[in-house]
């Protein structure tokens, strides 16, 4: 990363910002901090027009609403992956020449959308009323009939738990010329009408009824009986629904406006971003100042732009106290695996980026855990087809490419262990053709000898861990901590190799256990003596002891690689179970059909669950065991100022 600072004339500002955006390779920093500097006092001020950015944003949101309305109502085929359409700059500009027209269309769609929402709201309101009316359908007096000359009508409901006899008695006590009638009841409520003669005293029925949990139900907005209202409202709903359908059809007819509107939305987003980024700039009356980060690879192209625009500029290395953003620099093979690094957390700018190294381990472990040539082939082919068919970008593209590579490694391990959809070929031969075929694995069959695979898993694990220690040593030596590299890393490696020879070296050569023992014990003594070297006083002793105790974490780290065996076996077994189920139906044609049908479902499930397992545990081995030894995280991602568009990817060359 290089830091760049630019001073230029106001006249070229817009053009420069546009060109930097099209290049999409420079991160523009907020230069506001410079204003705090005493020497800079009064020289310049912050650039940027907040209001303009906000109004552009609001406009972009309106276009977005219109686009979403169209997307929801037009009959569009939804692609499996959302990708940006590639478009030449000239074509894009040509579309935007019709900007006023597109804007008009946007307003038209928004109007339709408002009407649509309005009608839907009406429908909701009516539906609420219909629900309210439902219990009263049996009541055949007008709902708005509150009183006649001598009689009062009260409509209301009580909870179903109420003591009806008690309530009736209470009503009669208040006025004996009363009829209380139950109109309806549902699971929660009893609906009542209370008709009573008018009395001289101004006393409302409702007051004393409240004690009984009575809630009055005044139908103030209704005229006529419940049934009439019900019919009327249903009629109204039908009308509104028809209208909604009409509006929807009208919107659906405008489907061909969609591509243009999407372009407009993207253009507005870009304009807004260009406006927003100006607030990172400083300005004087006629000049502007801009600073930021660029990767070394694009210096040449940025220089060309700056020369064209006639700006003053400077590139320099970051200072000690600055933390530049992090852009992973990977080989072509490892590039997809940077998605895994990003998933964890970016490395510190001055730390070590291990993507190029762990990519190989990742694919190797993934293949070992999935370990079926059939699944590997399906995975690789499916990913290649997706990559060919969809112009994916970003993390999605990395992930799919990564799975494609992992699929290839899986094929390798499947051949080594003799797994082709489990034992599908053998089962097919014996159930369908009645023959016995024996497919020999190239290396060995882990089902026959899991102990062998366990030992190899641990060996692979130790290699993986030693690689991590190697990186740690490299970093320590580079920073001048030579003895730390020896005592914290190298001695541990000797101890582990020694321990392994001591325990299992007997099968290699009779002398190995003895040498191993010497290495192990000698290493442990050194660890005990040096563990407290940075401490003072009693810390020298406890530091050594805790260092020796660290052997437990090493054992758990190494044993953790037993998951390679567990997941590798799991694939083979589940696949065999699927084949076994398929072969139970019978022999010959019947067996073939059963094997195919059950096989498609079963193996899809088995593959899904095992790919998930391989992905998760391969990641875990990197994150916990590998990264744990050396990784310094906390890097800020490099965020270039670029066309952050949603629908089109603009190719400036065309």
């Amino acid at each position, binding site marked *: 990363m290089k830091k760049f600072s630019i001073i230029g004339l106001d006249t070229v500002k817009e053009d420069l910002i546009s060109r930097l955006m099209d290049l999409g390779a420079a991160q523009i920093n907020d230069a506001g901090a410079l204003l705090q500097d005493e020497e800079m006092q009064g020289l310049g001020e912050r650039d940027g027009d907040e209001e303009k950015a906000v109004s552009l944003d609001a406009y972009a949101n309106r276009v977005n609403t219109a686009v979403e309305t169209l997307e929801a109502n037009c009959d569009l085929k939804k692609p499996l992956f959302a990708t940006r359409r590639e478009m030449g700059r000239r074509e894009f500009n040509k579309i935007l020449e019709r900007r006023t027209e597109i804007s008009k269309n946007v307003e038209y769609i928004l109007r339709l959308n408002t009407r649509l929402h309005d009608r839907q709201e009406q429908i909701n309101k009516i539906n609420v009323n219909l629900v309210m009316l439902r219990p009263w359908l049996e009541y055949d007096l007008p709902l708005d009939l509150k009183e006649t000359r001598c009689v009062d009508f009260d409509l209301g409901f009580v909870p179903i738990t109420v003591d009806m006899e008690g309530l009736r008695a209470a009503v009669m006590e208040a006025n004996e010329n009363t009829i209380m009638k139950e109109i309806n009841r549902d699971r929660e409520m009893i609906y009542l009408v209370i008709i009573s003669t008018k009395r001289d005293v101004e006393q409302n029925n409702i007051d004393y009824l409240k004690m009984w949990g009575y809630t009055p139900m005044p139908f103030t907005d209704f005229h006529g009986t419940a049934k009439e209202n019900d019919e009327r409202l249903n009629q109204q709903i039908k009308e509104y629904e028809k209208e909604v359908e009409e509006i929807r059809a009208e919107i659906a007819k405008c489907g061909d406006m969609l591509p243009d509107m999407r372009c407009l939305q993207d253009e507005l987003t870009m304009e807004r971003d260009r406006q927003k980024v100006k607030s990172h700039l400083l300005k004087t009356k006629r000049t502007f100042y801009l600073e930021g980060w660029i990767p070394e690879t694009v210096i040449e192209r940025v220089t060309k732009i700056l020369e064209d625009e006639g700006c003053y500029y400077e590139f320099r290395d970051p200072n000690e106290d600055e933390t530049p953003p992090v852009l992973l620099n990977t080989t072509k093979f490892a590039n997809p695996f940077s998605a895994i690094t990003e*998933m*964890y957390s970016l490395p510190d700018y001055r730390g070590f980026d291990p993507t190029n190294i762990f990519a190989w381990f990742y694919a190797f472990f993934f293949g070992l855990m999935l370990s079926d040539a059939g699944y590997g082939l399906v995975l690789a082919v499916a990913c290649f087809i997706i990559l060919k068919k969809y112009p994916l970008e970003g993390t999605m593209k990395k992930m799919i490419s990564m799975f494609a590579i992992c699929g290839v490694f899986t094929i390798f391990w499947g051949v080594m262990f003799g797994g082709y959809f489990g034992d599908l070929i053998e089962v097919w031969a014996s159930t369908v053709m009645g023959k016995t075929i024996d497919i020999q694995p190239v290396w060995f069959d882990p*089902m026959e*000898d*899991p*102990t062998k695979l*366990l030992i190899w898993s641990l060996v692979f694990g130790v290699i993986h861990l030693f690689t991590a220690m190697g990186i740690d040593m490299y970093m320590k030596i580079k920073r001048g901590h030579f003895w730390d590299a020896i005592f914290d890393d190298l001695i541990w490696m000797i101890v582990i190799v020694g321990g392994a020879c001591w325990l299992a070296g007997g099968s290699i050569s009779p002398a190995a256990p003895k040498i191993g023992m010497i290495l192990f014990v000698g290493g442990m003594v050194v660890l005990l003596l040096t563990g407290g070297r940075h401490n003072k006083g009693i810390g020298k002793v406890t530091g050594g002891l805790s260092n020796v105790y660290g052997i437990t974490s090493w054992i758990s780290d190494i*044993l*953790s690689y*037993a*998951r390679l*065996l*567990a997941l590798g*076996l*799991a694939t083979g*077994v*589940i696949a*065999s*179970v699927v084949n*076994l189920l398929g072969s139970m139906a019978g022999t010959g044609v019947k067996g073939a059909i059963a094997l195919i049908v059950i096989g498609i479902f079963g193996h899809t499930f088995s593959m899904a*669950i095992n790919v*998930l*397992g391989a992905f*998760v*545990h391969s*990641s*875990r081995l990197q*994150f*916990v065991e590998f990264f744990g030894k050396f990784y310094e995280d906390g890097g800020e991602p490099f965020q270039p100022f670029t066309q952050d568009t949603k629908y089109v990817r603009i190719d400036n060359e065309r």
Partner: protein
Amino acid sequence: MITGNALAIIGAAIAALAGIGSGLGVGIAGQAASGVLAEDPKKFGRTLLMQALPGTQGIYGLLMAFLIFARVGFFQGAMDVSPEQGWIILASGIPVGLIGVWSGVGQGKAAAAGIMLMGKRPDQMAKGIIYAAMVETYAIFGLLISILILFNSGV
């Protein structure tokens, strides 16, 4: 009189009990997933992925049961296991079966927390997955011991 054959099959059955843990764990994670989905239905795929994590204990149990079946020739119908071997095979089913129950529940809880984490901070999903995967290590150790016992039982 319990025969060696019966003991071996009991061992396989115990191993398969690991499915209890997975059942409970996937259930716990599923509840959390529904909660998150209520807020944002677009997260279905990712919550499903997290929900599947505690399912592995059951798979390890199934795996062990099948390894026992294969070892003793259960499918071929020619089982001939001595009582002593039978006891060893029974013992081999216990670690994966028992550890699976609790590690499945534990992983389910970790996965549920991870799902909620994802609901609030989708960018931190990977870390939630790793937390859940930490629990699985112990189920794997159980499986490891089970396999080592079985394959050194002399059957």
